């Protein structure tokens, strides 16, 4: 669920572009703007997601993202994390305009590489209005691009389909093929993922864990052939955030046994959980969803950012209630490196932690059981939307 950070990213980039130090107000979209078309559709339970159509863009909805995180291993067995997010935003501006430049759909992208040898993240971002073929989001299947950055599904007869992710920035670049094994995992109630006590705060949300990755990655002057495993989230919504949320914690982990775990909690003003949910796909393919008090996030170690002074709980214990009389399952979350903070206040206004983590079991001699990504927002200044 990452929506908060991604949403903040999408909206604050613009307010920062448009008004230095301007606060963003999520509720300012009242439809009174000139050129605002029809209202945003609501997210309701009971809708059936249809693939491959729902892999593509949903331009009527306010916000949408395709979010890929993963671990890569190069020829020398060096492990790195990577992240690529494409956002689509419908600002309800200039809808029905005759200019091709009409900013009625905006696209943003954000990419990062976590390289333990550097002890920090390499990251870059892009923003454009939708203007095919320069930038756009296709509706038939996943196909989003901003200039030379892209994430697109391709398939040919007789060959299993795969995503292709291409990113080139000054400091780093990657060109990866991501091949899914198995069907998408629908989060929440068949893809309806509730975010707060009020059911209108929800999204359509599915994940594709265990994407088999192969391709090229360069960081600095070094180019590598890489393989690994990644995770794709695709989520679209119109009114996802409750007003009283301060931030959230999210993980998405590929378990070594073939299972997959997604969990999030939204925190209120004082850090108290407002809403929590999780999806666990077991190795046998069975799916369990968790909600509210069936989940608890317990911080076990904190790290203070030398740059922003923000304190992040970089290590966690995650407890999931057992089914029936089964005992509580506990996981330990340990970061690839502590400093995976993204300080983009200068450009996007957001400052948060988003990084590669390992998952351990709760034994006396903990065994690594999976790898994934952790995101934590709202630990720095309270983020306004």
């Amino acid at each position: 669920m990452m929506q908060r950070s991604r949403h903040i990213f999408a909206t604050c980039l613009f307010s920062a572009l448009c008004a230095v130090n301007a606060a963003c107000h999520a509720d300012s979209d009242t439809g009174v703007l000139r050129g605002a078309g029809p209202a945003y559709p609501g997210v309701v339970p009971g809708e059936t997601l249809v693939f491959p159509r729902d892999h593509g863009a949903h331009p009527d909805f306010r916000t949408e993202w395709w979010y890929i995180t993963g671990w890569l291993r190069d020829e020398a067995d060096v492990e790195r994390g990577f992240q690529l997010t494409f956002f689509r935003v419908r600002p309800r501006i200039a809808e029905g305009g005759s200019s091709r430049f009409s900013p009625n759909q905006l696209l943003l992208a954000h990419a990062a590489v976590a390289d333990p040898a550097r002890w920090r993240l390499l990251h870059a971002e892009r923003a454009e209005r939708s203007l095919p073929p320069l930038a756009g989001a296709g509706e038939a299947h996943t196909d989003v691009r901003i200039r030379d950055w892209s994430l697109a599904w391709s398939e040919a007869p007789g060959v299993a389909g795969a995503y292709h992710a291409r990113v080139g920035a000054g400091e780093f670049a990657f060109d990866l093929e991501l091949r899914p094994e198995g069907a998408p995992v629908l989060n929440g109630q068949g893809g309806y993922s509730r975010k707060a006590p009020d059911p209108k705060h929800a999204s359509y949300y599915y994940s594709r864990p265990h994407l088999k990755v192969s391709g090229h990655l360069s960081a600095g002057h070094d180019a590598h052939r890489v393989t690994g495993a990644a995770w794709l989230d695709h989520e679209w919504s119109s009114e996802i955030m409750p007003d009283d949320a301060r931030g959230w914690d999210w993980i998405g982990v590929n378990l070594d046994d073939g299972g997959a775990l997604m969990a999030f909690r939204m925190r209120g003003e004082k850090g108290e959980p407002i809403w929590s949910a999780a999806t666990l796909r077991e190795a046998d393919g069975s799916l369990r969803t968790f909600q509210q008090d069936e989940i608890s996030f317990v911080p076990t170690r904190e790290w203070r950012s030398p740059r922003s002074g923000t304190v992040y709980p970089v290590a966690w214990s995650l407890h999931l209630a057992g089914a029936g009389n089964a005992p509580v399952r506990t996981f330990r979350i340990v970061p690839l490196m502590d400093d995976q903070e993204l300080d983009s206040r200068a450009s996007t206004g957001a400052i948060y932690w988003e990084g590669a983590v390992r998952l351990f079991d709760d034994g006396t001699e903990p065994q690594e059981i999976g790898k994934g990504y952790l995101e934590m927002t709202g630990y720095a200044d309270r983020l306004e939307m």
Partner: protein
Amino acid sequence: MNPALVRLFAASLGRRRLATALALFAIALGVALGLAVQLIHEAALDEFGRGMRELAGEADLQVRSGRVGFDEQLYLTLALRPEIAEASPVLELDARLPGRAGTLRILGIDLFRVAHVQPALMPVADDRDARFAGLQPDTIFLSAAAQDKAMGKGRGVLRVQSGVKVVAFRVAGTVPGAGVGQALGVMDIAAAQEAFGQVGRLTRIDLKLAPGVSREQAVTRLSPLLPAGISLSQPEASGTEAAALSRAYRVNLTMLAAIALLTGGFLVFSTQWLSVVRRRREFALFRALGMNRGTLLRGLLLEGAITGLAGGLAGIALGHLFAALAFRLIGGDLGAGYFEGLRPSLQFSPGVIGFYTALGVAAGIAGAWLPAHDATLMGPASGLKAGAAEAAVLGGMKESRGRGALACFGLGLFACLLPPFGGIPVGGYVAVALALACAVMVLPWATRFSMQVLNVGRGVVWRLAHARLAAAPGQAVVAGAGVVASVALAVSMAIMVSSFRVSVDDWLGTVLPADLYLRASSAGASGFFDADALKLVENTPGVAFIDTVRATEVRLIDGRPPVTLIAREVSRGWGLPLVSGSLSAHQRDDSTGLPPAWLSEAAADMLQLAPGSTLSLPIAGRMNLFRVAGVWRDYARQNGAVVIGRDVYRQLSGDLKVNDVAIRVVAGTSVDEVALALREVFSDDLVDIAMPGEIRKLSLEIFDRTFLVTYLMEAVAIMIGLFGIASTFAALSTARKGEFGMLRHLGMTRAEIGRLIALEGGLTAAVGVGVGVVAGGGIAWILIEVVNRQSFHWSMDIHVPYAGLAAFSLGLVVLAAMVARVAGYRAMRQSAVLAVREDW
């Protein structure tokens, strides 16, 4: 030279304060004018260039077109090219401000692209919760200068013209990156395209190249992708273009300054000559006391240099004052419209100050050169003799100058044939200087010749005056040189201005044949008539038929300002002031079948095309061939204009907009009534309605205002000429005390001697004026046929204001006689006995 000697020479200047002051004034005026023009223009160009650089930001290359723009597809093509790291599309418009003077530059930008290429254009919203403010279709961001220019105080809405309507934008914030004095508005590119009827069009793409790609490589590889008429150049090129745009205008003003400086030099010459003549005995004494020729020469040149230096310094101060005043009152534009809206600040540059001071000194030294040279040729012994001064005046000018005059004439003719150098008619200016020199050299001969012609004896006084001038033409040179120079300058300017004015008047008559004109805006700005607006015009009662004019811009040569492309009907009697070729669209000798185009003289010169040749014009991104059917005279568009048929243009471009509408009213209908009816249809602020009479009156008023400064220069020149007469005759009267005493002894009355002097003055002036008028005619011809043709590329019909010139000449001769009489008065007052005795 030791200080005592410096004092010795410098003190002489103090003894002739008025003469020195006038010479100083002329030099100061020349220096001031030249300096002011340069200061104003440099500051404006600097400001312009800085503005361009700011707007171009970090761009390595710019794709540019005229105001018409190009298809936005080019941006998509270029942005995906591997040579390009960043591309930023811009739609630039000059938005007309209803009810306000001038236009506001509005840049439609893509916020996301501007951040990477032109950060200075980044808009900043005032409002704290102005989400997406920079993308809203109804908002605009104004630079501080634009706020001042386009907005009333405390108003949050900007109203601009689009077509014949008003569009309003909410002012959502500022453009802090825009330089001081840069008046511009920034808005979203999509909103700008829609608000100004430019959907699908861009006017500029700023490009940042990928690492490792050089500008040359990029130009080579990308140029084939560009539609015709679109240039790919470095951002600095537009500054060069602006400089080229205003060069001719600057040269013109600088020429005025040069004429003032030249006049100053002449004045130094004539006062210095007189002074040298008067001080012959003094110099002979110096020489006898051991001063060598070199020292004498240097001393006399020093006198000229001091005058020049003082004039130069006064001119520097005056020039800065002029420039500062001009900045405060009219901005950096010099009234020519090239840098409208810029408010540059005055800058002191030691180099420029040094150069203009040196120019003043050079004028002083040049004026002093000939007299000083002559003074050194004198033998000390002969100079010490009584009457030496008179003898010097009498024999001052020898035949040797005749060859010089011939040489000047020949060289001048040759200089007229030279092509312009870098767009500046250097040959023409050299010919003007040579014509002046020739006139002065020919003066002794002219005096002798006219005295032979006038050898019709009447009274004693006439015969005496006649005999003196016939015998001593050198005197005429001294007194007359100033007259010749000033008359020549005044006459040439009078003829040129008169020819120009008459030609402009005729031209206005030809280009404004209709009864009524409607204008939505000039070529570049945002006003235009669309089909609906034209319907409204046509349906107005009293309108018999209308003709439309579409004016846009095309870039014919890279690095040169764009040429105005005018699409209109040429037949139907709406003529063009042709200088060659024919108006008929179908010519008998034409086998090409190409559509006709008519070039203005400036365009024909620039392209070096004559009727019958083939012209290719970039229209709608394609090259289209035309046949040059004629060349026409255009005083309005100095960078050139091309007229093509309206239907041909519409067919090629698909552009149906119209800038001007010419209306012929139904016979018997009052033009005023039709104008009134149209006024009710269109808002006063949006459409100008004018009758040809008004346009013509206004145009001629502007013309007269522009040339006011030349009348001032003429007046100064005449004053200087008269002063030459006065000072010469004052000196001559002193030198001829003995002669006058003798005449008194022989029985002449004082009044008769007074008449003698007046007559001599009048005759001298008459010869000077005669030569000056002839020289002035020649110079006028050079100015019209060489200087104007080469620098402004427009021809005119020579029109000599005979009556005015005759009255002027006669008046000048009478004035000269009076001045000579007054100047010689002192000599006549003296006792005859004393005057005779003094010489013995």
